Each structure stands twice: as structure tokens, then as C-alpha cells.
């Protein structure tokens, strides 16, 4: 099993397109960091506009590495799924398109095992991508902008998290983000098992992410009440929940999370979706006639 996994990873990382995602992420993060370095004040005014009328806003101190990382994650965790689809959507359909799938399937490896290994390999790629995001978004931001308290703007209020209470939240958030991205991996992987060509699954995954994200964020009551609770994109935002702090009489409680059971529920829903996608992929692929 391990040897087959090595082979799959070797195939993935032998292709230049795999590295495109890492390059794109690097570029986006650098661009955001550069922008905030020079125009951070304007951006701070925007996100602190809720409190600006009542309070003096300490823009310089508030714009620190922790906040830059939060901004980057807000941006990226919509775009990284697209990059994940590039590899996961190709992992089965790409082989069908290349013609290598038929040869693989004449080997003494069951279709179930082959698919599981391919899913595992794509998942490893996704995790590595996320680690890269973490290194640049958190590590580099902290290096460039230092650390201080974290200002988290929400729709109806804002909270400030004490500097010493921030880092563990990022670890938890990245762990949760991994679950979300693995759900996207599973979706792209499933579509890849259905197709003979990787363009279809990649584009389909991207379209699904975009449409669902719009529905999640549109704030139209009709969708909010009907579909939103079931969309995996709704639950992928759960990483933010680690930055929503409980307060007593306006004072934040260090180490607290406003609604941890909700985050757990979202995590389980995402895992459920991922499992459903993978099982569906395997079920379909087992009975598929290989004509490619």
C-alpha cells in the first residue's frame, strides 16, 4: 500500500502543474502583504469602520502579523479550493485521458484500493499546500509585521483577542481548514472518477465552489433558510469560529470559543460530505466500463 502511495505521489509531484498552485499561493500572499505594507491604513479603516465612530482606532498596532494572516486566510480559503481541484480533479480522469488508466487497471490492484490510494495521494498534496499557506500567511506575516492583539471584525460586533491567546487558535483554524479542503479534494476526486478528461472535473468543482460560496454569503433569507445549512461551503468557514471569543460584560475570556459545539458540528458535516464523495466515487468506479 505504501509503495503504491509513493508511486502516486511521485506521479503527482513529477508534473509541473502541481507546482503552479504553490507558486500562485506564494504570489497572492506576497501581493497581499505588500499591499498591506503600503496601504494598510486604508484597509484598517475599512474593517474597523464599525467601531471608528465611537473609538480611536489604533491602526498601526492593529495591523500586525496576526491580522495580516487573518486577512490572507479570508481571501485564500475561497481560492485554495480551486487550486486543490487542479490536482484532485486530474488524479483519475487525467489517467483516463492519458490512456494510462486502462494499463493500471490490468494490474493486480483492486479498483477500490487504487482509488483509495489516489485519494490519499491527493489529500497529501492538499495538506502540503495548506502547510505552505500556513508558513507564508502566518510565519512570514509575523516576521514582516510582528505580533500584537488580533482584531476580528464581525457583522454585528468586533472582538480583540489578546496576543498570547492567538497562536493556538491559528493551529486549530488550520486543522479545521484542512478538513474543509479535504472535502473539496473529495469532491474533485469524485468528479474525476466519473470523467474521462480532467478539464470537466476541475471546472465542475470550481463552479460548484463558486456557486455554493455565493449562496453561502449572499444573505438572502430564502437561501439562508433552505439550502445554506446544507452547503459544505457554509461549514468550511468554521475555521473562523476559533476566533469568536466568549465575553463576560464585554471582557473576553482568554482561551474561550464562543460556540465550540457548532464548529464540531460543521467539522462532522464536512467529514460526512467527504466520506460520501469518496464512497460514491469508489462505488461508481468499481462498475465503470473502461473504454479510455
Amino acid at each position: 500500500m505504501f509503495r503504491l502511495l509513493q508511486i502516486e505521489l511521485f506521479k503527482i509531484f513529477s508534473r509541473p502543474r502541481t507546482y503552479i498552485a504553490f507558486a500562485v499561493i506564494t504570489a497572492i500572499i506576497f501581493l497581499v502583504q505588500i499591499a498591506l505594507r503600503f496601504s494598510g491604513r486604508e484597509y484598517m479603516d475599512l474593517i474597523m469602520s464599525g467601531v471608528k465612530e465611537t473609538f480611536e482606532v489604533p491602526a498601526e498596532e492593529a495591523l500586525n502579523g496576526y491580522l495580516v494572516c487573518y486577512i490572507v486566510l479570508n481571501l485564500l480559503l475561497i481560492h485554495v479550493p480551486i487550486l486543490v481541484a487542479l490536482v484532485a480533479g486530474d488524479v483519475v480522469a487525467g489517467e483516463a485521458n492519458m490512456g494510462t488508466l486502462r494499463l493500471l487497471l490490468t494490474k493486480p490492484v483492486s479498483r477500490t484500493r487504487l482509488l483509495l490510494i489516489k485519494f490519499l495521494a491527493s489529500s497529501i498534496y492538499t495538506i502540503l499546500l495548506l502547510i505552505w499557506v500556513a508558513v507564508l500567511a502566518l510565519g512570514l506575516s509575523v516576521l514582516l509585521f510582528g505580533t500584537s492583539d488580533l482584531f476580528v471584525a464581525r457583522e454585528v460586533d468586533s472582538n480583540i483577542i489578546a496576543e498570547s491567546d492567538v497562536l493556538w487558535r491559528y493551529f486549530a483554524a488550520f486543522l479545521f481548514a484542512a478538513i474543509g479542503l479535504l472535502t473539496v479534494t473529495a469532491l474533485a476526486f469524485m468528479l474525476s472518477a466519473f470523467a474521462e478528461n480532467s478539464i470537466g472535473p476541475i471546472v465542475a468543482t470550481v463552479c460548484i465552489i463558486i456557486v455554493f460560496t455565493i449562496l453561502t454569503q449572499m444573505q438572502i433569507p430564502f437561501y439562508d433558510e433552505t439550502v445554506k445549512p446544507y452547503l459544505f461551503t457554509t461549514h468550511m468557514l468554521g475555521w473562523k469560529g476559533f476566533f469568536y471569543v466568549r465575553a463576560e460584560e464585554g471582557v473576553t475570556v482568554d482561551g474561550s470559543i464562543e460556540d465550540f459545539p457548532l464548529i464540531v458540528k460543521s467539522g462532522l458535516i464536512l467529514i460526512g460530505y467527504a466520506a460520501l464523495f469518496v464512497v460514491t466515487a469508489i462505488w461508481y468506479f468499481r462498475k465503470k466500463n473502461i473504454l479510455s
Partner: protein
Amino acid sequence: MMQKTLLLILLASPLLLEAQSADELLARVRARLEKVSDYQASGKMKTNVAFVKAPIATVKVFYKRPNKLRINNESGFSLIPKGSFNINVGNIFLSSGDFDVIDMGLEQKTGLRVIKLLPRDDESDVVLSTLHVDPRLAVVRKARVTTRENGTYELELSYGRYVDYGLADKVIFSFNTKDYKLPKGVVFDYDGGQKKNENKLPANRKGRVEIQYSSYLINKGIPDSVFL
């Protein structure tokens, strides 16, 4: 005889205290405050505003006569309410300019002398100030100031070691808050698909900042650059 005299004095003291005029009392209060040309105080600040959750901040408060005040968060950063310079009691006198004094007498419950200040200048931002003054210690324990631009704010002060200078151990500053308004689309909250609690925030339009001072460094000199 000595004991009887003392008892008489004690019983009569409220009357004696009442006997001093409001002007005289205010003069004593201001005399204390005038001893301070600058101070640097360490303390802990709590913010209690409906739409802000913040940790208790370790702060340094800098004051320089006549009206420079700065609150610095030593550990991270804090949201400092606009008009925070008003936590300095002396500011009430400063911003009232020339004023008329209205003596409301002793408040039975608290034993404090209630004095209203009415600025003479019609253009003054301050419309009315109501002070609850400790007649014995000659310090302001509570103040309620109504302004044209920023509504009404309140101060509650309690004193300890630094009462001689009229410097409080604890200040509670209550102020009006403006609505929390964030342009749509700037942030997207995580709600797990749950229904939004539309009335989550109470209509409470007042916020509170509470500073517990641990120490003051008085009249040691503070450069102007601190207040920039």
C-alpha cells in the same frame, strides 16, 4: 466635657459641612486638582461596550495640564473611546469655562453634595454638568456631563492613596456609542448555517470603560511627544 464637645461636633458636622458654600467646596476640589501638573499612571482597563469584546488591558495613562491625556495599551492595543480625555475630572471645569453654580444640596442616600455647573457661554459644548462631591474629602465621586456634540457622559470615581491630589484609584467612564456599522461584504461571518439572531445586540447605546489604577507617578515631567 471633651467627649461631649466631640460628640456635638460630630453631630453638627453635616450642618457644618452644609454650611460651606458650593463655591467653597468646588474651590477645595480644584485646589487638589491643581496640585497635579502631570501624572503617569499604571492600571488595568476593562471595556464594556455592546459591540466590542476586548481583553483586560494593561494600560499607562499619561496626563499633562491643562488637557492632554493619553491612554496607552502596554501589552497590545485597545480601543479608546473618543472623548477619553474626559476621564480627567479637571476637564469638566476646563470645558465649562465660566459657569454658574447651582447647589442642589446633600444627597441623603450617599451623603454627597450635588452641585450643578451651568456654563455661561451659550456656544460652549458643555450644556450642563452635575457633580456629586464628597464634602469631607473634597473630591468628585460622580459626574454627569451633558454635551451638545457627544451626548451625555458619566464618571464614577473612587479614591485611595492619591486622594490628596484628587486622583482616583478607579474610574468608570460611561459614554454614548454610535451604531456599529460595517459596509456589507467586508466580512463574512461563520454561522454554521444557523439562523441569525437579529436582535442579538441590545439597544443599549452606552459603553463603559473602567480603569483600576495601581500607581501614579505625579509631577515627574512628561514630554509633549507622548501625546502625539
